[in-house]
């Protein structure tokens, strides 16, 4: 009898409606966050995808145009292709390099002792939080003799006349990449430093007994596999960041930059979205960017899952 009753209760507990009722408090607690999350994150993504199939200028109601925006993007919009090329170049270079630098510096910093480690962490992390103060690079890159870079290179006789750094097509992208790298040791970097500090010491002792000879082997065989979760988190941070580059391009090279050498998908999006008010077309650009970011992230997560296997 008793077991039958227990069975009936168990049956009841399996029911979805029962479980939802049981967890009423949980739903109430998550409600404020998720209402805003749907309003400002989920809904905008869906609206953006929807609008990308329309012509919309903010004044008249959107009209459905099918794949027209996407066809125009790929077949007619030369600047989009330059922007896409720049963004991919940017992402392919700054993404992995910044990821690798985050890991390298975090690892080296972790070898130092307490106070010095805190100081080095601050020095390397600081550029990523100075906000608009990165505009100091404008002073470094000034195109006349008063620019610091020109001043130093002239003094060292490496160049013999001041270069117009941000007005010369071939310098724009490499310089933007360097500035972006300077800015890129952010949240992922902190996660790595913290992750390195939590690797279990006994793992190192065991590895030493197993014949791990030096710190490089230790890094590869012990440290990296032990901090895999942080590696995955850091990858998300660096990838998303490297695809979203726009502000530094606009502020250092201008929008539009000389021959669009500094154009990225985001600057192109801003051009159509906030200057020309072609919202349908801008949404198509945004959707392409969304797919690029999420697709790359998912792909890299898949690869990183294999570390140490």
């Amino acid at each position, binding site marked *: 009898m008793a077991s039958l009753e227990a069975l009936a209760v168990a049956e009841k507990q399996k029911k*979805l409606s029962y479980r*939802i009722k*049981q*967890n009423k*408090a*949980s739903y109430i*607690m*998550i409600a*404020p*966050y*998720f209402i*805003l*999350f749907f309003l*400002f994150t989920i*809904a*905008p993504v869906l*609206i953006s995808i929807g*609008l990308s199939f329309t012509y919309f200028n903010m004044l008249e109601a959107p009209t459905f145009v099918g794949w027209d925006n996407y066809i125009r993007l790929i077949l007619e919009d030369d600047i989009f292709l330059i922007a896409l090329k720049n963004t991919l170049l940017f992402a392919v270079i700054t993404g992995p390099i910044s990821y690798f630098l985050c890991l*390298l*510096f975090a690892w*080296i910093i972790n*070898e*130092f*002792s307490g106070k*010095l480690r805190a100081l*080095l*962490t*601050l*020095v*390397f992390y*600081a*550029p990523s*939080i*100075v*906000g*608009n*103060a990165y505009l100091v*690079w404008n002073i*470094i890159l000034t195109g006349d*003799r*008063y620019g*610091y870079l020109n001043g130093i290179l002239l003094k060292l006789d490496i160049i013999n006349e001041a270069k117009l750094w941000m007005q010369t097509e071939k310098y724009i992208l490499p310089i933007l990449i360097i500035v972006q790298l300077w800015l890129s040791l952010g949240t992922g970097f902190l*996660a790595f430093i*913290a992750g390195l500090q*939590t690797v279990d010491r006994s793992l*190192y002792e065991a590895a*030493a007994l197993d014949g791990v000879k*030096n710190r*490089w082997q230790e890094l590869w065989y012990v440290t990296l596999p032990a901090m895999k979760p*942080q590696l995955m988190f850091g990858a*998300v941070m660096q990838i*998303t*960041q490297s695809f979203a580059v*726009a502000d530094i391009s606009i502020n250092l090279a201008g929008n539009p930059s000389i021959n669009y050498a500094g154009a990225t998908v*985001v600057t192109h999006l801003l051009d159509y979205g906030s200057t020309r008010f072609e*919202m349908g077309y801008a949404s198509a650009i*945004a959707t392409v*960017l969304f797919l690029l*970011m999420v697709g790359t*992230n998912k792909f890299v997560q898949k690869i990183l899952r294999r570390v140490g296997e």
Partner: protein
Amino acid sequence: MAASNKSWKYFFKPKPTKLNRSRAGNGLLFTLMIIFGLFMVLPLVMIVNNALKPLDELFQFPPKIFVRNPTLENFTDLFVLMNDTWVPFSRYILNTIIITVGGTAGHVIIASLAAYPLAKHNFPGKNILFSMVILSMMFSWTVTQIPNYMIISWLHINNTYLALILPAWQFGMGLYLMKQFMEQLPDSLMESARLDGASEYKIFWTIVMPNVKPAWLTLAIFQFQQMWGNTGGMFLRDEELKPLQYALQQITAGGTARAGASAAVTFIIAAIPITFFLICQSNILETMTTSGMKE
């Protein structure tokens, strides 16, 4: 030989349980650190030095990185400029305080409130909701800015502080970090309170929140960093609603005539977030230890 060994030990933490570190390796790491460290720190050094340079040194040829005759002239120039602004300068400061404090406090509260059930309860829909939050970390806000502008207009909060504050509350990384940090709290902590008849809300406020102090400090600092650079952009049109960053940007845009004041501005923009980070560094690192993504 012995002396130099000793000095290495001063810089590198002693690791009796770890393998011997080769001196060549130490040297290599030290050199790498100095080269890249200089690259990282030089622009920051310039920000500080430029802020202290008198005008003639700012326009000196060849340019010098370090200041010769440090002065606070640039800051006094900045204060003079501040008295000239259209709306009283204190108004910009007040706006920034309202926006950052509002955005930060609200975010910490509602993200923690949502993180607790996600970390410690088991309810239908939990996994899908959390994976949506992770997905949201995989693209930047630039992707959604057009629909966001439309939604803010529909809500009729355009040109109010709320246009900046409300979207900031649902910043995905904050919820993610808080949830990961709460997960490591021992269940027994909450279980005993539950046996005493405490409600989930009471457990949240009296047991969970006091125990995750490093995490909410971290959320607050990250959120502050996000909000600090905000100029109000297209959401705030009225001059008397604009934040400090906007006013500072106007001063910097003044060109060579305002080079001194602009150097002072750059210093202030950089110094404030760095100071906050410095104060909370150890708490932030403690939070980041749990930031890892499990499969």
